[in-house]
């Protein structure tokens, strides 16, 4: 599914958070959104997910206004937002239940996505019994299981240590290539963006405007030490150099 934003603006009370944001993500493409803290990245995802209404502009899914879109969009939240009262298995099947899947299909899909993220043995565990990385994989499984064509991810790996983070990025690349979803992925890490994305959108500080929209043409699997990788990283870093916010990478 292709996602098009046309001049999307948003306000909280009088304060403008997003200012005429336009971008296009082609079907099956992986797009990373980056920008200083508070520039409206999470807000942008909530708008696309339909959790809030934009003050102006259009959000188009495959060219059509995104109205009746239940089940087409999956979202992984900044804090994971797993339901602590449900086991890993029940968390994954939650979305399927909401979509009204038949019990048999539901059970099969749940097991399939639990294995996809490597949590089959932990199906009966509650989220607070899982490690940070496992929780993020579980959150991905929950939003992927009902097979949305567009997946929105809000800094899903921000709370992980560098090592599990790199593992999760590789894992996500694998899952993305297996499931062929369109992905909109918010991150603060330039390194992460260059590793994952087909396209990197840089937002300016609040109100968020599109500062740059850069295609990343690197073959996968990507090597962080390759000269081309480093060149992309420097290019994006230079773009946001003058912003006061320092970036971790």
């Amino acid at each position: 599914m292709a996602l098009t934003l046309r001049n999307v603006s948003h306000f909280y009370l009088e304060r403008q958070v997003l200012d005429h944001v336009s971008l296009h993500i082609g079907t099956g493409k992986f797009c990373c959104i980056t920008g200083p803290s508070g520039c409206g990245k999470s807000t942008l995802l909530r708008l696309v997910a339909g959790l809030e209404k934009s003050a102006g502009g259009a959000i188009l899914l495959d060219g059509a206004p995104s109205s009746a879109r239940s089940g087409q969009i999956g979202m992984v939240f900044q804090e994971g937002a797993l339901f602590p009262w449900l086991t890993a298995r029940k968390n994954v099947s939650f979305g399927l239940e909401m979509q009204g899947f038949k019990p048999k299909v539901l059970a099969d899909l749940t097991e399939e996505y639990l294995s996809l993220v490597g949590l089959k043995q932990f199906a009966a565990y509650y989220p607070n019994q899982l490690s940070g990385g496992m929780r993020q994989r579980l959150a991905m499984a929950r939003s992927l299981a009902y097979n949305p064509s567009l997946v929105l991810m809000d800094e899903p790996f921000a709370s992980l240590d560098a090592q599990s983070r790199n593992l999760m990025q590789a894992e996500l690349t694998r899952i993305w290539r297996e499931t062929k979803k369109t992905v909109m992925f918010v991150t603060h890490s330039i390194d992460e963006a260059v590793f994952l994305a087909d396209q990197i959108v840089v937002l300016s500080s609040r109100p968020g405007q599109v500062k740059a929209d850069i295609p990343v043409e690197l073959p996968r699997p990507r090597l962080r030490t390759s000269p081309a990788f480093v060149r992309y990283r420097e290019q994006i870093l230079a773009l946001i150099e003058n912003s006061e916010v320092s970036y971790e990478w």
Partner: protein
Amino acid sequence: MLEQAVLPELTDPPRKKRNKRWLDLGLPLLSLVCFVSLWELTVKLKLFALPSPQDTLKTFLRLLIYGDTLYAKNLFQLTGASLWIVVKGCSAAFVLAIPLGVLVGANPYLEKLTHPILEIFRPVPPLAWIPLAYLMFSSLPGPTRYVQAFIVFVGAFFPAVVNTLHGIKNIDPTYIQAAKSCGASPGQILRRVLLPGSLPAILTGIRIGIGIGWMCCVAAEFVGGRMGIGFYIWDSYSTGGRAPEIVSGIIAIGIVGYLLNAGIVWLERRLLPWR
């Protein structure tokens, strides 16, 4: 594979060491022994007009097994009569308070609307309602039973409302957004997010409500009626200061209160395995 790399420790929680278990049993026992010794000491020193622990124990066992000949009731029947009132009062309180708490917690307008009423009546001690309750139920046959249940109702109602309300309000809004993003309807959000998410707080409200309801019941029985453990200890006083009977009644009240609380704690553990 990946599992190995980010696997957390999966060992069971370390089993309690033997001496630790000893302490779990030994310390409470020690505190009981100390308490009884202190009691014995005050009796020996004639500090208060207290019955001795031995007399009390004898009376307690007699009341438990044979009952009090004056009333032809044993302790089970006496506390049972009070418990039955608590069951009635608390059931009515929770049936009303929990849905109300959910509604008010989920709707900011309703909260503003009900806030003054709740906040004015909440600090009123439930027992202050007794005189009015007798007036309210005076036309009914045997008003005392209604009055007592009503006082329990008032005592249990407010903790249940307030805890439920806060339980709903304190649910992380990202849970609601997560459910919405999965396509949940408002009804599904209520049943699958708001209710399970506030269940810990609701159970806390029930636990506190039952505790207060039990206290209110005993106190309400002082005022009227010829049933229940509260009536029994008050009457034992007014018929001539039967101290061992009074203390036995107090102990029975304490034990029942403890068991009620322990029952809800057990229920909490069963219903909230994720805690």
